[in-house]
């Protein structure tokens, strides 16, 4: 057994987290910053942070992930990291020539009290930021929230620091992407185009973290929301935030700064959440939903009706990030499945409130988020009440193998399969892909384990 020491009996823990269902803020900030065109993320802390975040993102995307670091040593930790950051800014603009440096803090720089706003202002005053270039920042202490919080903080920083109101409204809608894959962002753009709505999507990692092989390394790939687009978001008619944890804070900040009204909807994962997304976007833009999209929806529903017998009553355990697993749980219920064990390491009361609503049909469901809501607990719950399917990031494979449970890779990070960068999990077609994968997981198992006389040709 890979996780041979995990006992069935659950004892409450307060000090020890085991097999976390989250990681720390800065990696989220780094990911968000990669969704701006011409931007180099910068980690203000020890080298290890930057190295770990780049490594994890690289393993997940199999793509170059460029980012710099303030390379703190003990001296910087005692005397403050200002000198390191100023030196870094100078070096980066002369060597790597980005349009933007997006600085995020770490537990180290936060603990010693480095003020990124003050240091970046000093860099500007000292003439270290060339004309037409930008240094933006976000405070992302690792001891608060999770990687999702860090993503939200950087997206908020992007919105606050670029948005301008010219007083003239533009006929465009901001779509603030919650933490999703480049493939999902591409799908958002495709759906908006089908609806005939002009949008500014930010951040946007498509064509950055799914860049083509051309024989040439393009340091700043062609994708990413441009500075020009980001400046214009203050003039947009409204914003649609996809996810209450990872996207809504930026929408609030933008509304505060530039009076751009916003609506928050779930990330469009599954049928119902995609329905709400399409309704909200079409309403905000005042457009009719074209037949094309209705047909796409129809195809998803068609498979749901055709294959309903395979989903009915199947018990599911899942873990991941709130903005993703809230709509996913709802989708599982739409499929007549039974999500019974759910954990998310990301704290916040919104998770509990939404899960309570969604899971009211399944009163026996266990769910927990925040401190000590980890995969160790999820595994223990599974030992007490076994499931038919486990959904989560790659680390779930250790549980899946020990418990002999079909496993659907979903979320971050996925270190052992490809696909997530290229094929969306959102919208109707993304949901269809999820559905296909769930079915395959069940059917592959049935084919592998069925008695010979029960082996089915047609399923």
């Amino acid at each position, binding site marked *: 057994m*890979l996780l041979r020491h995990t006992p069935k009996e659950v004892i409450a823990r307060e000090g*020890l987290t085991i097999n976390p269902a989250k990681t720390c803020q800065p990696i989220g900030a780094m990911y968000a910053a990669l969704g701006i065109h011409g931007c180099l993320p910068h980690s203000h802390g020890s080298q290890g942070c930057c190295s770990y975040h780049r490594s994890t993102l690289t393993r997940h995307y199999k793509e170059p992930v460029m*980012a710099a670091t303030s390379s703190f040593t003990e001296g910087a930790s005692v005397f403050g990291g200002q000198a390191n950051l100023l030196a870094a800014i100078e070096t980066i603009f*002369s060597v790597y020539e980005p349009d933007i440096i997006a600085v995020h803090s770490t537990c*180290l720089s936060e603990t010693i009290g480095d003020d990124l706003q003050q240091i970046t202002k000093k860099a500007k005053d000292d003439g270290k930021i060339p004309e037409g270039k930008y240094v933006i920042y976000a405070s992302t202490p690792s001891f*608060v929230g999770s990687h999702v919080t860090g993503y939200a903080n950087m997206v908020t920083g992007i919105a606050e620091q670029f948005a301008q109101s010219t007083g003239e409204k533009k006929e465009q809608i901001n779509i603030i992407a919650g933490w999703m894959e480049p493939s999902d962002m591409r799908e958002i753009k495709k759906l908006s185009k089908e609806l005939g709505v002009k949008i500014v999507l930010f951040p946007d990692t498509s064509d950055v973290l799914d860049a083509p*092989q051309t024989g*040439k390394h393009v340091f700043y790939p062609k994708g990413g929301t441009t500075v020009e687009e980001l400046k214009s978001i203050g003039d947009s008619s409204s914003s649609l935030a996809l996810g209450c944890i990872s996207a809504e804070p930026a929408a609030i900040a933008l509304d505060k700064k530039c009076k751009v009204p916003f609506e928050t909807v779930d990330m469009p994962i599954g049928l119902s959440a995609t329905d709400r997304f399409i309704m909200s976007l079409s309403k905000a833009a005042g457009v009719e939903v074209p037949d094309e999209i209705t047909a796409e929806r129809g195809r998803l529903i068609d498979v749901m009706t055709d294959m309903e017998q395979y989903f009915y009553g199947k018990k599911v355990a899942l873990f991941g990030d709130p903005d993703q697993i809230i709509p996913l749980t709802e989708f599982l219920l739409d499929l007549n499945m039974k999500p019974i064990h759910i954990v998310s390491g990301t704290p916040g009361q919104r998770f509990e409130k939404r899960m309570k609503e969604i899971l009211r049909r399944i009163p026996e469901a266990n769910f927990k988020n925040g401190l000590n809501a980890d995969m160790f607990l999820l595994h223990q719950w599974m030992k007490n009440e076994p499931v038919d399917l486990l959904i989560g990031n790659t680390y779930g494979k250790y549980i899946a193998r020990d418990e002999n449970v079909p496993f659907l890779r979903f979320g971050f990070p996925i270190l052992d399969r490809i696909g997530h960068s290229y094929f969306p999990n959102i919208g109707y077609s993304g949901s269809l892909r999820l559905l296909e994968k769930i079915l395959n997981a069940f059917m592959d198992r049935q084919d592998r384990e069925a008695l010979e006389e029960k082996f089915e040709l047609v399923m």
Partner: protein
Amino acid sequence: MEANIHFPDPSKVREELTQRYPAKVAKKRTKSIIINDPETIPEVQANVRTVPGIITQRGCSYAGCKGVVLGPTRDIVNIVHGPIGCSFYAWLTRRNQTRPETPEHENYITYCFSTDMQEENVVFGGEKKLKQAIQEAYDLFHPKSIAIFSTCPVGLIGDDVHAASKEMREKFGDCNVFGFSCEGYRGVSQSAGHHIANNGVFKHMVGRNNTIKEGKFKLNLLGEYNIGGDAFEIERIFEKAGITLVASFSGNSTVGQLENAHTADLNVIMCHRSINYMGEMMETKYGIPWMKVNFVGAESTAKSLRKIAEYFGDEELKAKVEEVIAEEMPKVKAVIDDIRPRTEGKTAMLFVGGSRAHHYQDLFTELGMTTVAAGYEFAHRDDYEGRHVLPSIKVDADSKNIEELKIVADPELYQPRKTEAELEALKEKGLEINGYEGMMKQMMKKSLVVDDVSHYESEKLIEIYKPDIFCAGIKEKYVVQKMGVPLKQLHSYDYGGPYTGFVGATNFYRDIDRMVNNPVWKLIKAPWETAGNGKGAELEASYVTQ
């Protein structure tokens, strides 16, 4: 080695590598970019701070301590005291394989333990939460040992992990709890963490169990972390040759083995950088000499086995080792005879680790390939120039804050395994006893040595030299491949391996053959980009006549 490779003018290369840097940075980097001369070995600036803003390969002290040295021992519960990220990123990502004795034996490598420090712990102190976490780990698992690793905020807020560990150790009585002050900001790279780990393992583990293991030729394997099963292959060879392995530091190891390590009669060192401190300390305290070996490369493996036999000076062992080599080598030869015509004359660059950039040159030599440039990520001058430079290495502020343990001979257990005269005689036979000659002596004249290579320098080097293969890590992998050059990961082996010993050598030959000769590299350009279709290129005549 004869140079049949045309090297670009190295001084021009150096200029090109640094010209975009601000003047001060360029001046600093120039001292780390050195044109090699194996006869007179020039000085390389190494183990110094990376300039902030430079995109570096380096990680932190915590990574070197927890990730590298302590991570591979399977029966320690390693609790990371800090915010969640540090433990998460080091969770199973280094591929240290381990093979518990039975399905019931302890193995915590698949687990990730953290105190998940919150803001209130940073403000009011985290010791209470740490002790609670240790207690919970003890109650859940009853492990033999619990190790605590400090992350950046821990040192700054002044949590005393050593006092907390001691308190809990005394409370439990049957569980060895100890801590490491390996905050990420210590030192300039992972290297600081290696040293801190060596100190802790030596202080808290080695010497606790005096049971003498059976076996005539007993040694410890130091600086081998069993990535991709490397240690398994070396264990196989040792067993075949009748050599008894007491402990590995630390691939496929257990607490029991480490505690018993001082009963061995020789320490052989693979990764000099990460573990030389252990060799030194065990020599001083217990009288066990250490010897540099290299099991990367078939010839190198044979050579290392012969050195071990020579050290023990036993005719029977020497004969057995020759028998093993004679049995293993034909299989290796069959593979290399097939592959070498396809790899001969190609070039490689290696920028990795603290020993791998040296060791893997042996495998490339066996493939008939030339290393045109190499450098370490976190090594010191002695790893480049040889240990004889140790007295001349300046101790700077970043090294000074890492503890140097004061070791003296153990009044009871010190027992020199060889006399001074015997050691001298062995050295004369070419054995690297208590010594290491470094990487540069083995590299060709005019080849380039670059310490702590930056992203910018790597891209330039590739443009200038157009190597057939580049060896580095995951962060560099896809950058280099986007340039159309295959990159072999020498930390994770691209999820393959083992690469040590005789079996490992053949694995490596096959992998390199596959990578440098893969037809996919020639398919990158779309047909319309290479021939006509309005892109300005002339249609090839063959198309017209066909």
